[in-house]
């Protein structure tokens, strides 16, 4: 099997949770290298938990997760970063006392030789960050922090970017901005797997949507098909 036919991420029957209790009860997920995947579902469905399981932050008790065909379940996060994964947590996603630039530098911690080049790219991508590069990240607004957080993850030049509710708590203006940026990052060849509360908007940019409920897949389809599905709309998208 040539590497081009392997999906970027292939999760099969993933069971996992915190301290013996499973929150995920057999989740399947496949994403190709150039796709945007969006995980939606009600509160407590295990959306963020699934993302954390992919990033090794939580124990996978059963099933497997393959990155480019290689099993990665239960590897520590720093090794996953080395293998091309980037993770942006929903909360506490910046280093508040470090300057914006230092935050970004930390993203390229494993590739110090790339810092200069990637800094230029990230600043080009998020111009407001360049103006605030010497300011402590803790002093920025929510939307700008989200940019710092995404910029930090991009500094490592990931092939897969995991975003946990990137628009949570943001004003509609910033929300659109973040969705636009996600599309652009994807257009540059980075696979995206994100959890979103703003399900309709997120599914609109999704190649694949995964509707989870009670730690299991309820619907898997393209983003457009899920949006058009009356069952999905009725149960999960608020009519």
């Amino acid at each position: 099997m040539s590497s081009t036919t392997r999906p970027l991420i292939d999760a099969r029957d993933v069971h996992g949770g915190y301290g013996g209790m499973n929150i995920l009860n057999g989740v399947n997920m496949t994403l190709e290298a150039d796709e945007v995947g969006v995980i939606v579902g009600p509160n407590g469905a295990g959306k963020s938990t699934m993302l954390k399981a992919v990033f090794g932050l939580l124990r996978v008790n059963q099933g497997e997760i393959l990155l480019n065909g290689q099993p990665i379940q239960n590897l520590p996060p720093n090794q996953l970063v080395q293998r091309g994964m980037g993770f942006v947590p929903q909360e506490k996603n910046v280093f508040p006392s470090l300057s914006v630039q230092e935050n970004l530098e930390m993203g390229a911690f494993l590739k110090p030789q790339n810092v200069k080049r990637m800094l230029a790219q990230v600043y080009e991508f998020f111009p407001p960050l360049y103006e605030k590069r010497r300011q402590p990240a803790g002093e920025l607004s929510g939307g700008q922090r989200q940019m710092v957080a995404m910029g930090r993850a991009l500094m490592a030049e990931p092939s897969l970017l995991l975003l946990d509710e990137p628009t949570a708590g943001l004003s509609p203006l910033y929300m659109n901005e973040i969705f636009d940026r996600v599309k652009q990052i994807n257009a540059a060849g980075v696979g995206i797997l994100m959890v979103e509360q703003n399900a309709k908007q997120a599914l609109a940019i999704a190649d694949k949507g995964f509707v989870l409920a009670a730690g299991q897949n309820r619907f898997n389809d393209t983003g457009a098909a899920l949006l058009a599905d009356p069952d999905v709309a009725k149960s999960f998208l608020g009519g």
Partner: protein
Amino acid sequence: MNELAFFINNVVIAGSVSGSIYAIGAIGVTLIFSIMRFAHFAHADMMTFGAFMVLLLTTLFPAAGASIGVPTAVLMLPLAMLLTAALAVGIDKTFYKPLRAHGVKPIVLVIGSLGVTLILQGLIRLFSGTGGQSLYVDDRKEIFRLALPFEGARAPIVITEPQIYLFVITLLAVVALHLFLNRSRLGKAMRAMSDNPELAQASGINTNTIVAVTWMIAGALAAIAGTLLSLDVTFKPDLSFFLLLPIFAAAIVGGVGHPYGAIAGGFVVGFAETLAVFNWNVLLRPFSDSLPAWLELPSNLAFVGTEYKIVVPFFILVAILVWRPTGLFKGKVI
């Protein structure tokens, strides 16, 4: 003018001496707290260990320093720093790492560090004996007397050679630490881990490396503080242990987890101590003619007696915890 010299000797110099030692000790305590989130009570005995290593090396090669014109003990300091850094990493691997791996609460680590302090103190006592020993084995402690440039000034300012080394080395250590934390990749990663350990890990920072580097720095700084203290007075196995309270007071006054705060806190506590035990009668006596006749100056006009010096950092500690629990600089509330 003799009063001025007396003031400089007993407050400015003495305060700077204790301040520098508290500051270097407190930086170590605060760095360990910011990375591992526990109060490391064995820090003072790591200081003693560093000084003891210097004593051993100096006893082995007493004449080594004379050839380049520095006290042998100062020459041996870098080596002792390395040894103490190794000890700190070893202690972490043996005692604290297994506890962390079990995910224990910080208080368990604190109690563990009390155990380590007893072990270290006992071991050092076993080999060094309980008496005081000078770190000046083969060379002489220089004492400089600087006359004040005023007429009628007879009393000189007295400063000793180890005190000058203390000031210079403290300054070097602080500048080096500042550059490390703000310019180097590892130093920034250390600050990042102190800010947000989960995100540091998610950025690919190997947190085990950062923990080891923290112990190395804390150990090296402890060796500096212990050695310079023992140079100034004499080496005793329990000398540094009695500095534990002022050092923790300094770290908390400055804001726990804040290295610059620890420096400021060290000097605040050091000067508060010397100002509190200073006999103010000396400064007021020249003005006794202009004071009302009914006011007779007592011969000893200090806030507390020298033997109660230890209450000063304790008082500052309580005051800070009541009125400004995050410290002068904004640190983490314990």
